């Protein structure tokens, strides 16, 4: 593993300057749980590594009337310890809590999980179901926003251009009667990459009718899969068994999975339906408790 440079900038401006100057040869180091594995295997040989964990804006969690602003480098454990965040976005919190062991939780970040661009990332479906946006710092000092569902363009690739830095995730405040859930299927109880991930966000009115829904699946397509047909099956229903089954079937039908060492396409398709139904039930339970 060769590495001529290591930098630890303390501001976004400084970081962007270093990245722009490196012209694509620098790798961003947040938790390092993906980057160092790739460096050890030789899959990535950066000319420079930029440690962004000393930039305050990337390490903060802010909850306000508009919603959540989550610094891209905040580690999963810290997110899990934030009681208010977990109460407002239980699905996001459980997705974050599923990223690996306690050791990984002590380092891994949502920003890194997103930028790694794995189809099986645990936090992406949840962020998509919540309608989250990425705040990106650009060379020259500007900022731009990209919805999370458009951020990852393929396995391992994102919309980030040279010199750009993902600074924070902006998650809208949940509506009254809204709640989310994330479920993941792995063969063991822990330590596996998701074979299927299902995120559901629901809004119920005071009569228990579903007014809005989002369903997003991970690990069943090259990028996160939004399933509007599944959401449509739920909206206007009382989340009765038939509606939930239809949503599950829509989720299975929408999948475009591959066969790999973690699961076959056919298996992922089936389990996507199962997890969607279960995530709906869990989100509904939470929404009812809030409503």
């Amino acid at each position, binding site marked *: *593993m*060769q*590495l*001529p*440079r*290591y930098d*630890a900038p303390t501001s976004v401006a400084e970081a962007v300057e270093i990245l722009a100057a490196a012209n694509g040869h620098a790798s961003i*180091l947040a*938790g*390092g*749980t993906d980057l*160092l*594995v790739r*460096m*050890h295997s030789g899959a990535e040989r950066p000319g420079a*590594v930029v*440690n962004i*964990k000393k930039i305050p804006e990337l390490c903060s969690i802010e909850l306000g009337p508009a919603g959540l602003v989550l610094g891209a480098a905040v*580690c999963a*454990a810290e997110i899990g310890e934030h009681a208010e965040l977990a109460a407002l976005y239980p699905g996001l919190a459980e997705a974050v809590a599923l990223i*690996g*062991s*306690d*050791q*990984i*939780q*002590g*380092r891994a970040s949502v920003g890194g999980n997103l930028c790694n661009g794995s189809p099986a990332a645990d936090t992406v479906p949840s962020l998509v179901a919540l309608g989250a946006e990425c705040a990106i710092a650009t060379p020259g000092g500007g900022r731009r926003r990209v919805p999370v569902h458009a951020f990852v363009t393929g396995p391992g690739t994102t919309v980030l251009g040279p010199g750009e830095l993902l600074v924070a995730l902006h998650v809208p405040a949940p509506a009254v009667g809204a709640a989310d859930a994330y479920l993941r299927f792995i063969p063991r*109880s*822990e*330590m596996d990459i998701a074979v299927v991930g299902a995120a559901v966000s629901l809004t119920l009115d005071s009569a228990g009718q579903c007014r809005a829904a989002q369903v997003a699946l991970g690990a069943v397509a090259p990028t996160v899969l939004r399933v509007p047909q599944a959401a449509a099956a739920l909206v206007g229903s009382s989340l009765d068994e038939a509606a939930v089954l239809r949503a599950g079937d829509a989720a299975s039908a929408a999948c475009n999975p591959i066969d790999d060492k973690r699961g076959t396409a056919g298996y992922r398709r089936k389990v996507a339906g199962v997890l969607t139904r279960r995530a709906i039930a869990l989100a509904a339970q939470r929404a009812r408790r809030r409503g």
Partner: protein
Amino acid sequence: MAKLHVTTEINGESAEFLCEPHQTLLSALRDDLQLTGVKEGCSTGDCGACSVILDGRLVCSCLVLAAEVDGASLLTVEGLARGGRLHPLQQKFLEHAALQCGVCTPGILVAAKALLDRNPDPSEEQARYALAGNLCRCTGYDKIIRAVLDAAAELRGAAR
């Protein structure tokens, strides 16, 4: 780039070393500081044998660059015993025979310490999930979990 100078606190004592930019914390601990309690089992963060506590958080030292710990504080297995007295976790591991070959033991002790620091009264299930990042191939985890829960009880008793 020349070697980087890192100043850090390890097991309550200040330490400094030179490291290459790409060098992992695991390598710096073992090769430059002779703290060989951390073990290299996989280098991919999947076995936990290299576990240390960095600024209060449990991490795999194979996934941390040595350069990153400048100004930080670390706890390794060598820092669990104080003044020649074993930490209750270490003592319970011995009493419960919670080790066979012993190579995973340093990592598991550090991970267990991190667990009890944040949750002094874990259930069996919580203890198992907290240690899911530490592979043991010898024991089947049974005696390890018993030792951790027993140490937790002793620490709670001592705290009262």
